[in-house]
């Protein structure tokens, strides 16, 4: 079965790839992913804060007490080639490039067009074939408008695009009031792909200690539906390619994402749970289903259930919502 697809301009043998996760920290795991048929490697995100805070924080803690007490003009040694930038990330990127023959997509997570954007260029220099720009942002400021939020993301995209020549995908959250329009704007600002969606960190509350506690569980197939709706809505309506990220646990999930219109499918939770080799199970399941259902190729199914093409577009939209709601009330 021909599972080939095109994502961010790369001709890939299959749409399946690991999503951004700590799996790439281990070169052995990366190799296993390649062996399991990954069509690309997506690295975990390098955070804007990681770059700026690490630089400022470390310098602050090293400098704030220096040159102020006669007996101790400093408290730390000062090596020449001490790197405060996340150089390790770039080095790991280089190592992955050397290890695998797949396209490697580096990932930057930031929300402003600051000095950290320089790392996009460094990622390209280190061998990244493409970039995923993750714009994780909670617009909690009551004075900040949606336009401002979108504007800042577009500025960031523009800054990153200026810094590199490789393709740039933007990884979005679902929380935009006009996501389709925003996706079109991203298109106009040069995005080469959109990744739907990043997973929001949803902290829990400790009711005894009155503290907010971080939690991050695995996704389930249920998380997929939100993606399906938006992939279907955007397929063929914007130029950038579309990746589905979140909720892919079975080969049926993969097929749904493809039918909704995803050019690539990123998997994280399922691989963390079952190991990198599970990617092969997904791939085999996908191929088998397509064969069983006498598809000629993956391309035949791609976008078949998008808003443009599906037999009942209303099902994705408001009408269907009403129907379900009414049915439930009854």
């Amino acid at each position, binding site marked *: 079965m021909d599972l080939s697809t095109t994502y961010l301009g790369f001709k890939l043998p299959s749409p399946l790839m690991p999503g951004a996760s700590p799996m790439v920290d281990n070169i052995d795991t990366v190799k296993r992913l390649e062996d399991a048929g990954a069509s690309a490697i997506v690295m975990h995100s390098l955070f804007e804060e990681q770059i700026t805070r690490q630089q*400022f924080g470390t310098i602050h803690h090293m400098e704030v007490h220096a040159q102020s*007490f006669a*007996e101790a003009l400093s408290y*730390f040694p000062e090596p020449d080639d*001490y790197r*405060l930038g996340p*150089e*390790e990330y770039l080095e790991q990127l280089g190592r992955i490039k050397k290890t695998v023959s797949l396209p490697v997509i580096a990932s930057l997570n930031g929300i402003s067009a600051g000095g950290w954007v320089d790392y996009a260029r460094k990622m390209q220099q280190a061998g990244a074939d493409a970039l995923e720009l993750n714009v994780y942002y909670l617009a909690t400021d009551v004075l900040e408008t949606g336009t401002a939020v979108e504007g800042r993301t577009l500025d960031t995209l523009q800054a990153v695009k200026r810094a590199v020549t490789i393709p740039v995908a933007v990884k979005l959250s679902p929380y935009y009031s006009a996501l389709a329009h925003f996706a079109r704007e991203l298109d106009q600002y040069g995005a080469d792909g959109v990744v739907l969606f990043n997973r929001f960190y949803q902290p829990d509350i400790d009711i005894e200690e009155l503290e907010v506690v971080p939690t991050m569980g695995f996704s389930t197939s249920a998380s997929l539906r939100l993606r399906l709706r938006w992939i279907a809505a955007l397929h063929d309506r914007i130029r950038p390619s579309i990746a589905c990220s979140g909720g892919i646990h079975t080969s049926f999930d993969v097929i749904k994402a493809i039918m909704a219109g995803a050019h690539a499918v990123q998997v994280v939770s399922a691989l963390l749970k079952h190991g990198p080799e599970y990617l092969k199970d997904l791939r085999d399941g996908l191929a088998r289903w397509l064969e069983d259902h006498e598809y000629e190729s993956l391309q035949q199914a791609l976008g078949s259930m998008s808003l443009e093409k599906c037999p009942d577009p209303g099902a994705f939209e408001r009408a269907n919502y009403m129907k379900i709601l009414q049915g439930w009330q009854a």
Partner: protein
Amino acid sequence: MPERRMITMDGNEATASVAFRTNEVIAIYPITPSSPMGEFSDEWAAKGMKNVWGTVPQVTEMQSEAGAAGAVHGALQAGALTTTFTASQGLLLMIPNMYKIAGELTSMAMHVSARTVATHALSIFGDHSDVMACRQTGYAHIVSNSVQEAHDFACIAQAATLASRVPFLHYFDGFRTSHEVAKMEELTDDDLRVMIDDELVKDHRLRAMTPDRPVVRGTAQNPDVFFQAREAANAYYDACADHVRAAMDKFARLTGRQYRLFDYVGHPAAERVVVLMGSGAEAAHEYVEWAVSRGEKVGMIKVRVFRPFVVKEFMAALPKTTRAVAVLDRTKEPGAIGEPLYQDVVTALREARDDGFTQFSADPRVVGGRYGLSSKEFNPAMVKAVFDEIAKDRPKNHFTVGITDDVTHTSLDWDPEFDIEPAEVKRGVFFGLGADGTVGANKNSIKIIGEETPNWAQGYFVYDSKKAGAVTISHLRFGPRPIRSTYLVSKANFVACHQYVFLDKYDVLSYAAPGGVFLLNAPFGPAEIWDRLPREVQQQILDKKLQFYVIDAYKVAKDTGMGRRVNTIMQTCFFAISGVLPRDEAIEKIKETIKKTYGKKGETIVKKNFEAVDATLAALHRVEVPGRITASYDMPPTVSDRAPDFVKRTTAIMMANKGDLLPVSAFPVDGTWPLSTTRWEKRNIALEIPAWDPAICIQCNKCVMVCPHATIRAKIYEPSRLQGAPATFKSVDFKSPEIKGMKYTLQVSPEDCTGCKICVSVCPAKDKSNPKHKAIDMHPQMPLREPEQLNYDFFLSIPDFDRTQIKIDVKGSQFLQPLFEYSGACEGCGETPYVKLLSQLFGDRALIGNATGCSSIYGGNLPTTPYAANRDGRGPAWSNSLFEDCSEFAFGFRLAVDKQMEQASELIQKLAGQIGETLVDELLKADQSDEAGINAQRARVVELRKRIAGIKSPEAGRLDLIADYLVKKSIWAVGGDGWAYDIGYGGLDHVLAMGRDVNLLVLDTEVYSNTGGQQSKATPLGAVAKFAMGGKAIPKKDLAMLAMSYGSVYVARVAFGANDLQTVRAFLEADSYPGTSIIIAYSHCIAHGYDLSLGCEQQKLAVDSGHWPLVRFDPRRAQAGENPLRLDSKAPKVDLAKYIYNETRYRMLEGIDPVRAKKLLESAQREVRARFSIYEQLAGFKTADASQADAAETKK
């Protein structure tokens, strides 16, 4: 040959630069002010820099200077070119090996930043008392007077020692030269190759001990031969001076800088001559040139080579017209005829006469004088006073200069207004806070001017003795000619005050020359600022016609994302208005420096700094100075009117930076000072302080427990005490099942709080509807200052609750009065909460011996000291002996206390008939295991005194004197890990083995904190420290395990942030245990590199990750048949990485060498688990008794 560079550096770096390149082995131990020489060497070695033979020298940190000297001796004997760097007490520890090295005619040049030896007090500053204590060792002494000379003489000494085989002690003045930043010409590697003769290096190697050519050295000799054999080396000393002269001449041919054994400067027919050595000689040089240009027949001799002292050469340097000589020594030898150089000069003149080579028909009169002890200022005005004195018919001998001696009247008068600095030299004085980066910025400015322009530049930096909120004063000079002014700037063309609040505390403008520029960082604009100045400041601006500029640098810093670092901003202002360089050029240079400093660390930082520079000029304003004074207030008095007389007369003067003005009569004669002086120094350094909400507070007193400065306190008291309370004084019913009907108050001392926030971070009480709000939150200090000060005064006036009624747990212990308060320790210090707890629990009956280090500095550095007495006048008796002998020092306390207790017991038994058998019996058998018991015994002693008052016998008199020893005393040795794990370990181990009732408190920061972050044996695996730049490769020494191995020692490892109750219990158990006890206390520290308000969180993680297992080993349990060891913490539940990577000391290794960081993390993680498992097993063991009991149980 590559061209020599003109660069700016300090004397330490200048010296190390040569020593590093001309040696193969460097063994050191950190000690101020020499530490940077070792640190530079270590850094260069870690970076792979090579010596002139193309190999990287081995740099090793030892456990003490004695250890370093041993390693140096060994390395020399085994044929390596070897050096070391040290000072003061450290040099004294090297003396035994120096005798050996010299006795064996071994070539080496060691480098000493000469520092005061501790006598009545410790001093980190410079004089020659240390090096003068080595003049008899057989080392040649070569003295440099400036940064350039320190560089040059390091080379000459190395060349001369190889040629002469006599080892050389090269020294220069601590701080004045070691820490002065100056422009100098750097010797190239080729220069050094020319100077160091490889043939001589070969000879050195051939003298090495090797089994391939075996010899025996270090024999023991008997009366028949020792004497002759000792004299056998004479010829080498006779020839030594020739070798030095030859090296100096060769050096002159190479560089154009000619030095001589004795350099004469002055009128060829001088009648008055001053002789001295060290940096002071440059101030004298400056004066002599000035005086000669005015026709005065004066001159001076710079003694370059003090040992061997070559009489003929000295005589040749002295003009034959000389009628009077003043010999100045920077040391004091009480009881001697005079100080060393004076004695040598007198002897030289006499020998010359006796041996017939004197040029004088009548010998000049010679007087000796002391100057500059402990870096006391020595300037041309003082030099003038000396010359004026020897112009008299009967000049004073054995005089002092630079102080006012109104007791024995040794001092010479001098005119503080006398000033000969040429107008061509531009002078700047900058007042800053340690944390604002002023010193760093000034060092950059010197670099810019010194290296980028033809000008010469010099910087000297004065620091105060506080670690929190430290004040720095930078003294900068720039000029077209080399600068010899080895003294502070007193008349500055440019004065900058980087902190507005300083204007209320220090006489900043006293440094300003008429017509100069004054730059102020203040939160007020140009229109507003004038009215915000105290009267004294306005007056001086008008009187001196100063040009006045103002900038709100904190606003610029905040707006440009620089936080509270105003260094770059103030530096930009300096260049913009001082006119030292064209403005645009200067700004370009500042930016280049920023790029150089931060470029490799991250673009973001560079950009932010650039933005700050660009935003500065728009925010800098010239102030239109009105022609009259409009001030609404005067500078407030330094201390409150209520302060004791001594504090007002002496302490307050020091606090105001005017201690130089105090005469000899102001001081105690033996270094004994009163307690409780920090309470008069209201420093107001916190921007925010905690404010209490009684409605939420659960009265746990955790905030009080963790406060490093004893500035948040709790008290319980009768409701009636509230009478007369200020309107805003807060009070609430005390919650307690045992003590009913009392009121409770938690009170902050607003002017003493440092704003560290650690109290807020540990507060567990949250507002249920708004958990962000806790029982204590931080609020701006300014509006709270006045009302809370009133409240605090009222709080202090309420008597402390009866100690005997308080249950001593975490909460209870914090109702006890801290007798250690408001120290100068860092904000958020992790050591002081333990010291404070000790003072609360046992302070009224404690003798504390303190090892040198942070705890002796915040514990005993003037002007004010934190140990305090209670209402009864009792409090900790505290003293610092040395770094290395703290355990033994405290052990001595125990011997003396026990002996006196024993004598008192003997005497009461002897006098039992007159005292009364019952009282004697009670006194002897008293149970003093708790507060009530101690209180009762104190009452008995009062009664005893009453009864013996009427007895007229020598015994009764003796008993009266020592009766207080019948009350139990608590003896403590307190110090850091440098003391306990390294330099003092031998003594500590011995005291542990002696079994006497001494308590050792180890404040373990896992690094040398006071001297700036050098590794100790307490430094954990994987942590980066100086001398462990690649991360420490072996685990920290398990001191608790070693102490436990005796079986007879009470051992506790505690961390108050992780388990405060265990900490309190450990202190109580240590005190109550009748043998030796040791408490190893986790102390978070600025040298760990994170926000210390999170110190307690980190302590929790240290324990939860298994890095710091909490244990208590109590031999009393073994006596009771139980396992003596209690493991008070649970098995590791978080990964080590979660703990360590919050701290820069670990995280920076990821930046240096990520692969090694990962490897070390893995080993550290393994090691932590393995060690915890050993503790678990040890704590799980059953004692023999228990096993037998179990076995018996089974049989039943």
